[in-house]
């Protein structure tokens, strides 16, 4: 029996630490990323970007630029006037700004030329006149009503200020919950924004055939959404557009929504009849952004005498930047997942996202759940301390139970939270060290939960979230077609492993054709940690579709019922008498002879009963949740304020590890990225300008900053996951930041209420000048 209860004997691929199937291409330089492509007669494009954070565009004159030899075409906002946005509720961007610009770096025009240098030179000759408007650069400024002289960032919004979205949800009787509390903890935290900084700069290549059919290769995590948006913006039927996602050089959420350069490449290729490439510079990647929202978080938590949470109220204010992006979803996510880890008597959540004149924020690994998780796990540490309880044991005591419902009605299935907590505690001897280390040394612990895919699609539709086709060749090769995009997380390998497991063939005999809207069934994309669960399930059912047919034919040949056929090691055999066997190839050929072309289809749609029935219930539900716990050990230099992370131990419940080595890699990468966010990464602005749009000043941890990382894989049995699997790509990041914050608090005996925990902030805390953030009355929020 397989671990998930399916009648599948003896797994040989699932669970094996095999090299990833696309690894050869990656270690030889053979993998072709978007910018590696070159097509005959290809033109190069440049975007002209706004130097102002907020300004009206008075005029654009590009006649001189167009006369430069080698310049082929120029376009501005009015050439591509259709608004788009990743969420149906936020169709607020155009490819090039129309009438006004809303952040420094916003594309205003596009130029294509015979070569990059020419495009760049011509760009400098485009004459754009602006009328500069006052800019809005902070949450506080955005909440103020706009007076007579001011102008809203989005003049057509219905409010008097720059609020984009408000959310108010209450579950249970909050007043009774707080009345029931013996102690109430009230704290405010600030999580600074930061960015993905995937190493590959975004790139797109478009080619329009003589038949008018457009092919667009783009480093995108979401080829399907790009397909939809390209069709709308270019006013071209989707059937005439083919989107291909080549290997993506890191995403982390930064490539999950259609952005200007992709659509510009497509537009110019149609206009010129030639292939066109746009590759962003590193600086442009910082402006394209869609990174982690800066969030101010107010937490009020009531605790009963026994330590249980009687009531919790979370208020968040998100600095959204200039456009909607995924922001409505992000806003909900700042409230949706806290109850997935811990039991609470009552829960209320108020979220407010504002527009500011900065590059738009969007989803980064952990999407919207990372910031409140940092705050909540920090506060829990203070609560445990007040109660005199061990930080790990306290969390285990209030942990949510497997197969339960959260206070906000989310369905929880498998849950390895307690196992993860005890694994990290034991591995580090946490209880013996916490609060007992020498001054300057500290240890901290935190936990979290994450989605295995959003339970509902971004645009409402009743179709599957993922589809797959499995085809068997007469030579025994198996191909899986699925619309996924691999940004390094290993989705190609995941698909191959699942199909190999289902059909009992060598994983290297499986080819993966992914992310190609002409060839592959839709998968919604690499976001919300959905791919293993959803595409994995689709792939598995497509493979089982094929297997069932083979079993009918092989069973007949072997003189046994189809159910008695086992598939392993390239053989189909009688599970009661393994010597009676056919080779997989012979069985597949016989099946093709009997039933015709041997291909199977599968799809995955999440179950319908994941959530409650209220407005906003669509964000947060997931078919399953992953759980993580982290312990970090730090050393703080009292002289310089520098924090050195000495060790991170991170345990993650991923259901069944389809490939433990890849799961470890995701855990290690999450530990590293979380550490960067905790200590150094920040999207900082000076007046209207991004202060540090390059990889030297935007500090990320180098190999010298990054400590030993112990990844602990916790396996639970997730009945609905493919071969029992859950996600591993995002969840493990979330506990790392509060674990480090808690370790710093342990080391210096004071809490720092903001990220990143820079030397400056440490020194301020040591001086006593920092203190808790000022608590203040919520502005622009109704009280519930």
């Amino acid at each position, binding site marked *: 029996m397989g671990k998930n209860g399916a009648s599948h004997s003896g797994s040989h691929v699932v669970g094996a630490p095999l*090299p990833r199937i696309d690894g050869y*291409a990656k270690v030889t330089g053979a993998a072709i990323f978007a910018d590696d492509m*070159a097509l005959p007669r290809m033109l190069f494009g440049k975007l002209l970007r706004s130097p102002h954070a907020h300004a009206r565009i008075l005029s654009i004159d590009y006649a001189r630029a167009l006369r430069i030899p080698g310049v082929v075409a120029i376009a501005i906002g009015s050439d591509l006037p259709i608004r788009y946005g990743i969420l149906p509720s936020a169709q607020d961007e155009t490819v090039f700004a129309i009438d006004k610009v809303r952040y420094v770096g916003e594309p205003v025009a596009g130029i294509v030329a015979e070569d990059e240098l020419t495009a760049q030179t011509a760009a400098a000759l485009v004459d754009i006149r602006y009328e500069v408007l006052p800019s809005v650069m902070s949450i506080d400024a955005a909440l103020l009503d706009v007076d007579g002289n001011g102008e809203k960032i989005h003049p057509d919004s219905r409010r008097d200020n720059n609020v984009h979205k408000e959310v108010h949800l209450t579950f249970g009787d909050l007043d009774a919950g707080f009345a029931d509390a013996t102690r109430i903890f009230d704290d405010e935290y600030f999580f600074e924004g930061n960015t993905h900084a995937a190493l590959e*700069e975004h790139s797109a290549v478009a080619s329009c055939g003589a038949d008018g059919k457009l092919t667009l290769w783009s480093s995108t995590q979401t080829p399907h959404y790009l397909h939809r948006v390209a069709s709308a913006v270019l006013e071209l039927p989707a059937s005439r557009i083919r989107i291909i996602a080549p290997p993506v050089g890191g995403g982390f959420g930064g490539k999950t929504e259609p952005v200007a350069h992709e659509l510009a490449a497509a537009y110019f290729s149609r206009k010129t009849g030639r292939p066109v490439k746009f590759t962003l510079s590193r600086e442009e990647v910082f402006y394209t952004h869609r990174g982690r929202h800066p969030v101010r978080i107010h937490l009020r938590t009531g605790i009963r005498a026994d330590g249980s949470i009687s009531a919790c109220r979370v208020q968040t204010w998100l600095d959204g930047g200039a456009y909607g992006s995924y922001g409505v979803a992000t806003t909900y996510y700042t409230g949706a997942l806290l109850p997935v880890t811990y039991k609470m008597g009552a829960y209320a959540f108020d979220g407010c996202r504002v527009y500011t004149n900065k590059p738009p924020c969007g989803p980064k690994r952990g999407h919207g759940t990372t910031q409140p998780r940092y705050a909540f796990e920090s506060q829990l540490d203070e609560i445990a301390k007040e109660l005199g309880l061990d930080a790990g044991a306290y969390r285990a005591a209030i942990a949510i139970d497997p197969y339960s419902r959260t206070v906000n009605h989310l369905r929880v299935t498998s849950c390895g939270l307690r196992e993860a907590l005890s694994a990290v505690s034991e591995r580090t001897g946490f209880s013996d060290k916490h609060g007992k280390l020498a001054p300057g040394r500290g240890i901290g612990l935190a936990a979290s939960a994450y989605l295995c895919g959003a339970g509902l699609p971004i645009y409402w539709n009743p179709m599957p979230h993922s589809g797959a086709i499995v085809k068997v060749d007469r030579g025994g090769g198996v191909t899986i077609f699925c619309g996924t995009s691999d940004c390094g997380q290993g989705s190609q390998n995941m698909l191959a492993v699942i199909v190999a497991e289902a059909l009992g063939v060598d994983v290297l005999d499986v080819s993966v054709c992914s992310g190609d809207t002409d060839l592959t069934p839709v998968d919604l994309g690499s976001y919300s940690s959905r791919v293993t669960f959803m595409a994995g399930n689709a792939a598995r059912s497509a493979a089982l579709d094929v297997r069932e047919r083979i079993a009918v034919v092989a069973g007949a040949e072997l003189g046994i019922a189809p159910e008695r056929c086992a598939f392993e090691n390239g053989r189909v055999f009688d599970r009661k008498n393994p010597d009676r066997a056919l080779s997989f190839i012979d069985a597949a050929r016989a099946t093709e002879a009997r039933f015709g072309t041997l291909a199977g289809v599968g799809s995955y749609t999440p179950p319908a009963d994941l959530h409650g029935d209220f407005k906003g219930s669509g964000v947060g539900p997931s078919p399953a949740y992953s759980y993580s716990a982290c312990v970090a050990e730090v050393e703080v230099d009292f002289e310089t304020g520098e924090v050195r992370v000495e060790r991170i131990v991170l345990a993650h419940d991923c259901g069944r590890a389809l490939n433990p080595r890849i799961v470890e*890699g995701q855990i290690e*990468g999450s530990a590293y990225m979380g550490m960067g966010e905790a200590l150094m990464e920040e999207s900082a602005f000076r007046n209207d300008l991004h202060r540090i749009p390059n990889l030297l000043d935007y500090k990320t941890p*180098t190999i010298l900053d990054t400590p030993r990382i112990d990844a602990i894989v916790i396996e639970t049995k997730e009945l609905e996951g493919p071969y029992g699997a859950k996600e591993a790509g995002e969840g493990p990041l979330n506990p790392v930041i509060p674990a480090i914050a808690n370790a710093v608090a342990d080391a210096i005996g004071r809490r720092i209420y903001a990220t990143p925990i820079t030397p400056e902030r440490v020194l301020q805390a040591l001086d006593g000048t920092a203190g808790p953030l000022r608590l203040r009355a919520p502005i622009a929020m109704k009280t519930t």
Partner: protein
Amino acid sequence: MSIAPSKILATLRVNGRDATLAFHPHATLLEVLREELRLTGTKHGCELGQCGACTVIVDGTPVLSCLTLAAEAIGRSVETVEGLAVDGTLHPVQRAFLELGAAQCGYCTPGFLNAAVHLLEKNLEPSEAEIRDALAGHLCRCTGYTKIVEAVALAGRRMRASIDG
């Protein structure tokens, strides 16, 4: 037509073979490798000397090809990731990266491989600190560096064993 200045004709020795080609005098080695020679294994993450993705070996020394003019490489020997595997057999460092999963998205990988091979050519038994030092100029956003360090150490052990054995 274009406004670019005229090209120079020169011979570059790349992965042991001479290639005569024309390129702009201001072209970087990165651009010439990728765009003229179509050796796209060499990557770029910043083109400002900040990420290490573009690292190649010139006359035995790792250099950032985004900060090196192609003209500077004339008459010198350039090695890129495409030259690491010999007759389809992976270099031990490549094999270790593959086996341990030290390449996730793989975008930083060519730069790391070149730096690691260079390290092991000088020192087959590097300590963890020496490995980290040698790779300090390279950013990886995916792996947390853990498996990269392990892979370099593993490759060193294997290379030692094959010499000893």
